[in-house]
C-alpha cells in the first residue's frame, strides 16, 4: 500500500510541457501534470484518443481506442526482451478508453497480469467529442446523448464500478485518486512504480465544460466528491487487501458535490435522496472492508 507524503515531498521537477491545449481549469490536465511528475523520466507514455490534457517530456506512442491494452503489452514485453525493465510502460487514457471502448484489451492485459501501469483520467464522459455519456457517467447526469427533457432524467444507469471490476481480475494494484488530493495521488503513483504486474490508478478529474461549472471550481468540486463519499479514495491489492485512504468522521452531504454542477441541476429532492442513500450504504461497506483490511470479491 502507498505511504503518505507531505506537500514538501512532492517533486519540484515538472514533466509536463505547458501551456497545453486543454480548456481553462481542466481537471485532466492537472491529473496528467501530477501523475507524470511522480513518474519521472523513465516511462514510455501510451495514449488512445481523448482530450488533450498535458503534453509530457516522455516518449509517447498512440494507438486506436481499442488498442491500449495490446500496445502497452507489446511495449512492456519488448522492454523485457531488450533488458530495459527499468523503463515503465504507462497508459494514460480517458474513461472512454478505460471503462468502455478500451475495456476488453485492458481486461485481457489485466487477466494476463502484464507488467504495465494504466492511469485513467476519469472525467465521466467522452469529452473530446462533446460530452457523450460513457460507462463512467454517473446516474442523472445530463450529457449530449442523455439530455434532460420531458421524458428523460439524464443518464439512467449508475456509474460502472471500474476499480472493483479491475480488482476482480486479482491484479497486484488498483487505486482511486483525485486531483484535489495531490499528495495521495502522488503517493499512489510512487507505490505503483515499486511493484510489478498490472497496476491501474483511476483519477477523478472534473471537467468544467461537460460537468458545467465555472473553471475555478475544479478542485473544490473534486474535493467535495471525495468528502461526500461519491468518489472514495482507496487501494486494493491482489483483489483482496483493502485500504480506505480518506476517512472523515462524517461524510458531507452529497448536495455539496451535486449542487455546484449544472449537469445535475434538474435533480429533484427524491432523486438527490436516492443518491444520498446509495452513497451512504456503499460508504458503510467500504468502512467495513477497511476495518477488516480486506474486500471480498
Amino acid at each position: 500500500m502507498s505511504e503518505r507524503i507531505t506537500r514538501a515531498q512532492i517533486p519540484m521537477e515538472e514533466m509536463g510541457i505547458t501551456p497545453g491545449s486543454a480548456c481553462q481549469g481542466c481537471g485532466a490536465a492537472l491529473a496528467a501534470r501530477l501523475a507524470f511528475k511522480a513518474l519521472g523520466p523513465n516511462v514510455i507514455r501510451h495514449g488512445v484518443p481523448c482530450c488533450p490534457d498535458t503534453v509530457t517530456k516522455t516518449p509517447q506512442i498512440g494507438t486506436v481506442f481499442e488498442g491500449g491494452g495490446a500496445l502497452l503489452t507489446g511495449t512492456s514485453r519488448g522492454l523485457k526482451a531488450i533488458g530495459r525493465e527499468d523503463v515503465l510502460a504507462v497508459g494514460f487514457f480517458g474513461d472512454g478508453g478505460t471503462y468502455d471502448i478500451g475495456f476488453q484489451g485492458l481486461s485481457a492485459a489485466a487477466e494476463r497480469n502484464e507488467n504495465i501501469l494504466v492511469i485513467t483520467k476519469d472525467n465521466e464522459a467522452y469529452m473530446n467529442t462533446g460530452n457523450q455519456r460513457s460507462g463512467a457517467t454517473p446516474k442523472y447526469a445530463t450529457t449530449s446523448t442523455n439530455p434532460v427533457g420531458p421524458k428523460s432524467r439524464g443518464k439512467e444507469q449508475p456509474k460502472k464500478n471500474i476499480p472493483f471490476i479491475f480488482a476482480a481480475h486479482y491484479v497486484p494494484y488498483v487505486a482511486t485518486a483525485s486531483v484535489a488530493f495531490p499528495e495521495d495521488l502522488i503517493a499512489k503513483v510512487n507505490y505503483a512504480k515499486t511493484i510489478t504486474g498490472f497496476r491501474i490508478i483511476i483519477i477523478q478529474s472534473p471537467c468544467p465544460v461537460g460537468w458545467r461549472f465555472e473553471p475555478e471550481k475544479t478542485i473544490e468540486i473534486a474535493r467535495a466528491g471525495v468528502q461526500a463519499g461519491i468518489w472514495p479514495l482507496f487501494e486494493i491489492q491482489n483483489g483482496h487487501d483493502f485500504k480506505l485512504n480518506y476517512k472523515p468522521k462524517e461524510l458531507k452531504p452529497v448536495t455539496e458535490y451535486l449542487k455546484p454542477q449544472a449537469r445535475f441541476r434538474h435533480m429533484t429532492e427524491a432523486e438527490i435522496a436516492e443518491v444520498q442513500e446509495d452513497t451512504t450504504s456503499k460508504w458503510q461497506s467500504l468502512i467495513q472492508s477497511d476495518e477488516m483490511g480486506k474486500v471480498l470479491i
Partner: protein
Amino acid sequence: MIEIRLHGRGGQGAVTASRILATAAYEEGQYSQAIPMYGTERRGAPLTAFVRIDNQRVRERMLVHEPDISIVLDPLIAKQQGVVESLKAGGIVLLNTAMAPEEVKLGGDFKVATVDATTIALEVLGRPITNTAILGAFVKVTGALKLESIEKAIKKYFPGRLGDMNIAAVRRSYEEVKGPIQAVVKSGVQEKMDLNVGGYGVLKDVSSWRVFTPEVDVDKCISCKACWIFCPETAIQWDEAKKKPYIEYNKCKGCGVCANECPVKAIEMVRVEV
C-alpha cells in the same frame, strides 16, 4: 443571401449564437444554416462559426469564405485584422469592445459597430458569456432579423429564468450599440494571432485566453504551495529562496483555480484591460 462569420473563444458561446441566429431566421420563415468550424475547440481557445440566411433554400454546404457580416464576441480578438479578412465590400463588422467605432484600428471598406458585450454579460448574467449579449446589437445595426425572433430563439435554447436573463442582455446591447460608421482607417495593423486554434499540442502563449488575470499579494501569502500544486498549466512557479509563488503569465489561461484554492485569499482575479 446573408452570410455571417462569428469569431469567439470556446466558452463564449459563438456556436450557440450561430444557432440562435439560424433559428431566429427560421422563425421568420426564412431558410438558414449554422455551421461550427470543426476542430477540438477548447474553452478559452479562439474559434469561428458561420451562418447563412436566405429567403430560398440554401444549397451551399461549405464554410463562409466571404461574409457580409463579421460578429466578434471577444474583446482581444476584436483587435485582430483577421476578423475583417475577406469581408465583402460594404459589409459590417460588429465588435465586442468598450471602444467607440471611431477608435477602432481595423481598416478597409466596411462599416464598424461596437458594443461592450463583456460588461453587459458580466452585469446581467454574472459571467463573461457574450454570445447573447451581442445579438441585440446585431439586430440594431444590421436589421437582418427582428428582436422578437431572436428572443423566441433564445427561449428555445435557454428556457426559464436563464432565458429571461439572456433576453435582458440582448435588449441592453440593442440599446447600447454604437455605429455602424464607415471604417476610419484605410488599412489596419496586421497582427498575427491565429483566430482558429484547434487541435493538440503545446501552445506558446495563452495570455489572450484570459478575461481575468491572477495577481499574487506576496505579503498576504503564507507559503502553503496550494496555488502551485493545483495550477493545471504549471503557470505558477515556486521560488524556493523566497518561499513564494510567481506566475508565468504566458502559460496562464485565467481559470481562477489558484485564487479559489488560496486559503488566505492572497490571489485576486483582476479583469484584463483591453
